[in-house]
């Protein structure tokens, strides 16, 4: 079993090929809101709850379609792409524009205000993905309350969703044999240590597979062929938490 390759699936980076559709309803709702040309959509949740994955996936889905009557923009990091935002303000066109802004918490109050004004022109749909605290701040402003019709709160995964997430990721990439090694006890352990946070799940599994790979290379007798030993998950957690060996 090639654990070295498997661990790459769980790298902490946004690779849309590794996207796991955990809530299709959420995707449909969001896409519908974009087609309805809503002014502002706010997606919020804890760090690592899958906001970036979700908006990137929808952005790509819409990009693939030829019959859109709007233009799409994606700003992954507004802090680094300030010029793009500035350009948006200068654009004058009758065409509708859909702007996805990830990490919206890095936007200044002034920029957010200007984005609101853009949305008021009815030519823009602004989709802001931000942390929970920032979302509350934005919504606290009265003039935003009437303009944001869609709030999408991304909650941490529950135990059954963790199982779905791991299995889907492995099976999508043809690692059926490794997916079958996971037991209920493994999922419970993963849930205990990550509390359902997608980023934490990825980090923990990346480390777990790295450890298993090491032991498989050096002490193959220690690695079970029938299941993932909880020992390796615990060791990965200890390593990530900086519990020194």
């Amino acid at each position, binding site marked *: 079993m090639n654990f070295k390759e498997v661990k790459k699936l769980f790298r902490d980076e946004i690779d849309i090929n590794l996207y796991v559709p955990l809530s299709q309803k959420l995707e449909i709702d969001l896409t519908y809101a974009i087609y309805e040309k809503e002014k502002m959509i706010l997606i919020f949740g804890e760090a690592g709850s899958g906001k970036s994955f979700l908006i990137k996936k929808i952005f790509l889905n819409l990009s693939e379609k030829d019959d859109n009557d709007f233009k799409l923009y994606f700003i992954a990091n507004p802090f680094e792409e300030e010029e793009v935002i500035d350009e948006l303000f200068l654009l004058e066109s009758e065409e509708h524009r859909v702007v996805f802004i990830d990490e919206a918490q890095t936007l200044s109050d002034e920029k957010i205000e200007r984005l609101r004004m853009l949305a008021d022109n009815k030519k823009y749909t602004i989709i802001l993905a931000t942390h929970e605290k920032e979302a509350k701040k934005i919504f606290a402003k009265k003039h935003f309350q009437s303009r944001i019709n869609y709030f999408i709160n991304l909650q941490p995964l529950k135990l059954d969703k963790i199982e779905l997430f791991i299995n889907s990721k492995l099976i999508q990439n043809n690692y059926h044999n490794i997916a079958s090694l996971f037991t209920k006890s493994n999922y419970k352990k993963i849930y205990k240590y990550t509390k359902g946070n997608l980023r934490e799940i990825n980090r923990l599994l990346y480390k777990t597979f790295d*450890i298993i790979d*090491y*032991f498989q290379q*050096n002490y193959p007798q220690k690695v079970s062929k029938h299941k993932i030993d909880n*020992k390796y998950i*615990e*060791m990965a957690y*200890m*390593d990530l938490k900086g*519990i*020194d*060996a």
Partner: protein
Amino acid sequence: MHRYEKLEKLYYRKLYLKYLFIFFFVVIILGVFFVFLNFEKKQPIKSNHVVKAAKEKNTTKNIESNKTMSIPKIKEVKKLVLYPMFPDVDKLLKETNIKQEKNTTNKVEKPKKQEPKIQAKTEEVKPQAKEPALKIIVKPAKETLSSLLYLYSKSPEYDIAIKISKLYYQKKNFDKSIEWAKKANKMAPEKYESWYIFAQNLLAQNQKAKAKQVLIAYLNTYGNDKHILKLLDKIK
């Protein structure tokens, strides 16, 4: 050594400590449990439960011993056992007074009728009550008041209560003597000793008339007894 190997060692060390903690926790819990059990055993059994149990034992013994008797006799025994003897002495005395007034002419007839019943009872009860093994263990070398009190706390029996009552009487602690006579009477109201000592105590307290009435009450309820009759003669 690779850091993952060190990590593995650390993992096992943590696991060992975890199990050690669980082990000690369980040992402590068990230790506390056993200490509590021993503490309960060491405490003298003075609770009402034991007395109640003894009562129940006596009543069941009586009923069992009377199983061989005829049906009317069993009914009689039940009545006697349930009848509150010493605690309601005054009531009893009133009742006996009324009876005495009514049956002054029939005084001799009633005891005569009951004589054979009592004899039959004692004949059958005695062999069962005599359980040598128990008595040998229970009997102390010297029957001092404290040793008897200790014995009674361990196994509350009629004989021990009577002995305690007698000792208190000898020490002229009449109130205590009456108290223990009452305890004995509750266990076996049909036995004469408790009545006898009770009457003796009343005599010692210059309550001659009351003592007389108590003795007559016994004779009327349980029939003739030579010891009771003797004491009654003395009083007269």
